[in-house]
């Protein structure tokens, strides 16, 4: 074969991962430049390379842009009410130890309206995976600020800049004793997929904060109008530090203040299910 | 025949437990019974009341408006519920704790349940003493079945409760 022959891009109708996505629903509803599809891609790769049978994976999501992820993944998938996917997942996981239940939902859903369920699920250490996609804003409802919006960032309900401190999620989750805590962006696709794969293996509450691009929502209010602006932001201002001091990883998005990424926590912590076994023993059900 | 029996006392005296045991014994005997516990918001020391209905027919209205029998285990219980006793009804009191009668009964029975319980070393069995007194004073529930129900309810303190029950039966007197 000589180099004079032209190798062209091949125009096709399906991708090799179409067995794990609901291809009849593609293209999805997410905006151009939004990276939620990338999160989906990373998750698909993570479950495909996990040792857990595909049919035992369950995705639960709530309301919002990220909440739609359940509708695009070809697994048993449940799209529940706003803020409640973690409570739904807990109920499911507690009665069915054979299921690998993963909650994929947004920041507004999981830690703002659903904040109470979030902290209590971590405290209990129920064996679920929570992949929280943080776009710093309520996208679907029209770009209102939320509990992850950085101070000073503008949104449709913070036209003068957000006056509230945002959550430092890795610190919050680690402080509650979670066995696995990580943060990656949608630019760090392979690290993200690896972290997801690890989260699936971890026993107990495994948490990944995924920083994503949101050009039409957060970006349009904060000079990040294209998806590529976010990619550049992530490329230029992220530092990877697995051993970071979590008290210092809050996100400001101010110049010179990096977004710290890494697999911050990976430890063994007895799970709710381990402790529940003790209850069964004391009650005489288990010997 | 329907009996409306109101137990009144303060939290911690075992009023509600006594009412439950009485109702259970009645059901065991083939009667119908309903028991409605009520108490104040305090965890201990507040008012406490058990309304027990016992009937040889199915009970339609399970609550008590004017009791036929009032069992007052404290002056506070008497103050609170004394006036509710049906005119000509029966009163059973802890004679030591209840000093002032606030109802117009046809008969008053008395037993120093708290003292007797104290003498047994466990004040919490005052309610069992009272059940013994009740069984003796009123011919509503068979004392044997009542004692059996008590024994089943407290399998770890059988002798103590038997003694308390027996002393209640022995020491109750009409005043």
């Amino acid at each position, binding site marked *: *074969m000589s*180099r004079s*022959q*032209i*190798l*062209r*891009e*091949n*125009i*096709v*109708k*399906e*991708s*090799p*991962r*179409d067995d794990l*996505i609901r*291809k009849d629903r*593609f*293209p*999805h509803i*997410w*905006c*151009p*430049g*939004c*990276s*939620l*599809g*990338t999160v*989906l*891609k*990373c998750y698909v*790769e993570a479950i495909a390379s996990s040792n857990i049978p595909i049919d035992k994976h369950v995705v639960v999501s709530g309301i919002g842009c990220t909440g739609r992820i359940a509708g695009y993944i070809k697994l048993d998938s449940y799209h529940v009410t706003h803020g409640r996917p973690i409570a739904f997942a807990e109920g499911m996981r507690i009665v069915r130890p054979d299921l690998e239940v993963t909650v994929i939902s947004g920041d507004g859903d999981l830690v703002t309206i659903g904040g109470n369920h979030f902290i209590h699920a971590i405290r209990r250490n129920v064996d679920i995976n929570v992949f929280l996609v943080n776009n710093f804003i309520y996208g679907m409802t029209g770009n209102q600020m939320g509990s992850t919006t950085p101070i000073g960032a503008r949104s449709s309900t913070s036209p003068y800049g957000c006056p509230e401190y945002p959550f430092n999620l890795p610190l919050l989750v680690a402080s509650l004793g979670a066995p696995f805590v990580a943060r990656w962006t*949608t*630019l760090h*696709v*392979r690290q993200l*997929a690896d972290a997801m794969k690890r989260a699936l293996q971890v026993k107990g509450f495994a948490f990944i904060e995924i920083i994503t691009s949101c050009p039409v929502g957060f970006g349009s209010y904060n000079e990040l109008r*294209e*998806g*590529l602006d976010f*990619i550049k932001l992530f490329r230029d201002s992220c530092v990877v530090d697995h051993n970071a001091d979590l008290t210092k990883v809050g996100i400001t998005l101010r110049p010179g203040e990096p977004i710290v990424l890494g697999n911050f926590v990976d430890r063994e912590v007895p799970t709710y299910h381990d402790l529940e076994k003790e209850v069964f023993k004391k009650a005489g059900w288990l010997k | 025949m329907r009996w409306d029996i109101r137990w009144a006392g303060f939290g911690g005296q075992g009023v509600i437990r006594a009412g439950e045991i009485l109702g259970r014994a009645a059901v065991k005997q083939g009667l119908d019974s309903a028991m409605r516990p009520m108490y104040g918001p305090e965890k201990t020391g507040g008012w406490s009341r058990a309304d027990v209905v016992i009937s040889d027919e199915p009970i339609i209205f399970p609550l008590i408006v004017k009791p036929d029998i009032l069992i007052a285990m404290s002056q506070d219980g008497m103050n609170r519920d004394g006036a509710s006793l049906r005119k000509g009804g029966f009163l059973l009191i802890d004679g030591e704790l209840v000093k002032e009668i606030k109802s117009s009964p046809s008969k008053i029975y008395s037993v120093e349940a708290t003292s007797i319980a104290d003498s047994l070393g466990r004040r919490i069995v005052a309610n069992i003493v009272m059940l013994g007194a009740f069984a003796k004073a009123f011919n509503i529930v068979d004392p044997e079945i009542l004692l059996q129900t008590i024994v089943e309810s407290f399998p770890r303190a059988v002798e103590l409760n038997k003694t308390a029950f027996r002393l209640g039966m022995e020491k109750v007197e009409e005043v």
Partner: protein
Amino acid sequence: MTLKIVREPINKHIQKIPLGWIHIIPERCKECGFCIELCPKDVLIVGNERNIKGYRWPKIADGKAYDCIACKMCEWICPEFAIFVKEVERGEVV
């Protein structure tokens, strides 16, 4: 003071640079530009055809077809599952 040593793999003579064959699903593309921007070899450029939503899906720049090293960054980063790369033997493709 660090002494920098650049080492050559001892098996360099038998190492092959992988060749990737880019596949595209035009109807899924939303022209976000991620694949083009993040291609380490600048293989992709904005195409000139538009799909039914008006987005121009990427195409291989002239003369770049054999530059794809199958790193699959475009495939990973694409939010639409609209592009993927198959690693091929250089002799396989026409």
